[in-house]
């Protein structure tokens, strides 16, 4: 059990490090080709409402998200700093682990303004490969239904 927690924690750390260091081109590679990534609110999630702020059901859609952020969308430069809780293992099978991890994200704007941007939890399904583990599903459930101005970088 400890090994699994350590493996997941390591994967989670690599994921947020990638985003926080601005290497978002590598972000889709944390996912399987056939995946689900969704950012939604606790209210939508608890009511069973399907639509999210971001919804992607393929790695291609994640790549498109990054390509659009880099090439098309216009927004003020900013960065995140993610703080993660310990993963809570919900279920463990040979090839899949489901877990929940709290996150706390601070957003640093171009002018230095630093605010709590989002808190919530990752509801994850990791596929356990021989060499590494990939996200088969990540539902980002934000505690608040309120988003300040924009959500550009992924959570």
């Amino acid at each position, binding site marked *: 059990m400890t090994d699994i927690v350590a493996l997941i924690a390591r994967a989670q750390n690599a994921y947020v490090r990638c985003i926080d260091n601005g290497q978002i081109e590598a972000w889709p590679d944390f996912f399987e080709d056939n995946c689900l990534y969704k950012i939604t609110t606790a209210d939508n999630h608890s009511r069973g*409402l399907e639509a999210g702020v971001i919804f992607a059901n393929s790695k291609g859609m994640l790549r498109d998200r990054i390509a659009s952020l880099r090439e098309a969308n216009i927004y003020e430069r900013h960065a995140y700093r993610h703080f993660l809780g310990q993963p809570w293992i919900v279920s463990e099978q040979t090839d899949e682990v489901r877990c929940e991890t709290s996150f706390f994200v601070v957003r640093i704007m171009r002018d230095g303004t630093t605010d709590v941007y989002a808190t919530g939890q990752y509801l994850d399904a990791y596929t356990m490969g021989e060499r590494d583990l990939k996200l088969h599903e990540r539902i980002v459930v934000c505690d608040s239904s309120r988003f300040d*101005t924009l959500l550009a970088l992924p959570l």
Partner: protein
Amino acid sequence: MLDQVARTAIEAGFPAWPTDGVTRVPYWVFQDRAIYAAEQKRIFQGPSWNFLCLAVEVKNTGDFITTFIGDTPVIVARDSDGELYAFENRCAHRGALIALEERGNTKAFTCVYHAWSYDRQGNLKEVAFKDGIKGKGGMSPSFCMEHHNPRKLRLAEAFGLVFGSFSNDVPPLEEHLGEEIHSRIGRVLGGRTPAVLGRYTQSLPNNWKLYVENVKDSYHASILHLFFTTFELNRLSQTGGIIVDPTGGHHVSFSAVNATAEQDNEYAEQNIRSDSEFSLADPSLLQSFKEFPDNVTLQILSVFPTFVLQQIQNAIAVRQIVPRGVNRTDLHWTLLGFAEDTPEQRLTRLKQANLVGPAGYISMEDGCVGGFVQRGIAGADGEKAVIEMGGASTDSSESRVTEASVRGFWKAYRNQMSL
């Protein structure tokens, strides 16, 4: 010579509107606290119809939602007679909120402060310890509960959209909207049952009118939003136009695909995609299904002062703009599908929801640009915006390279504000 409108404004303590009518908008309207306060009285509590919710959100007896008209908190509830009622979310006793939740189901509303209780029509029904205890204390015998209710609203529906008004003077909703606007709401929502797919709130760092201007501004679309352009998804065969109602306050901006040119275009699109520097790795995002008998792929519709109905391909949503102070605005998004959707159609809507909202491929910038203006005009309350694209008129037009519907908003605004 000052005209009568300008004179009235000066008497009310506001600076005069610049000459040149609605082609110039003074920046103080986005900055002035007195203007904000006057808007509450003259617009939101004045002769306007304000979007409150969808009828399906309060479908069953006892269902309620809480929302806002301008600053004013409001409750909408369905009573056992099947009718909807709306009233201020303000206890008649000491002014506390009557309902704290955003939605729910209830038999009655009881203020937590002193347990004054209201029925689902907003009538005061119980006052705790009204007759005192053991003959001591209590309300005066002359106290009449019927005379102490939160203010009640007029309600009206258009194709399942519920609007409320504090005014007895505003014409009936359908007349207020006019046939052109009303029928284009029906085009999107008529004859089927909306289903809420999701909700979120986007907080905007700007005055509410800057977001309204952005919604009505068909000039910026291809300039600010580069998603379609970058990925070579613009359709050469697009036609379109804008409709501005006679008051100026409501508008529709639309674009359509020419059906015969479309076949050629699809062929060309294949080539463009393979040649283009950028292409979507997963183009299923934009694989729409045929939803309407016409070929309109985009229809943005606004109702004065703060309602937007959006159709962008198969992404349908309503947006409610709620002012939260001179510099802050809440934008409440409700993403819609329909009970009649197939699972495939539902999936398409979920994918195309990526186009809108705070993370929207084509509306991400809209959330930011109002803040750019609010920050840009700081210290420039004596200066003014130039709104002259397409001339000075507020007329409907076949071109979308015009600011006619922005001017239309200011025409309606000035009229209602006596500015």
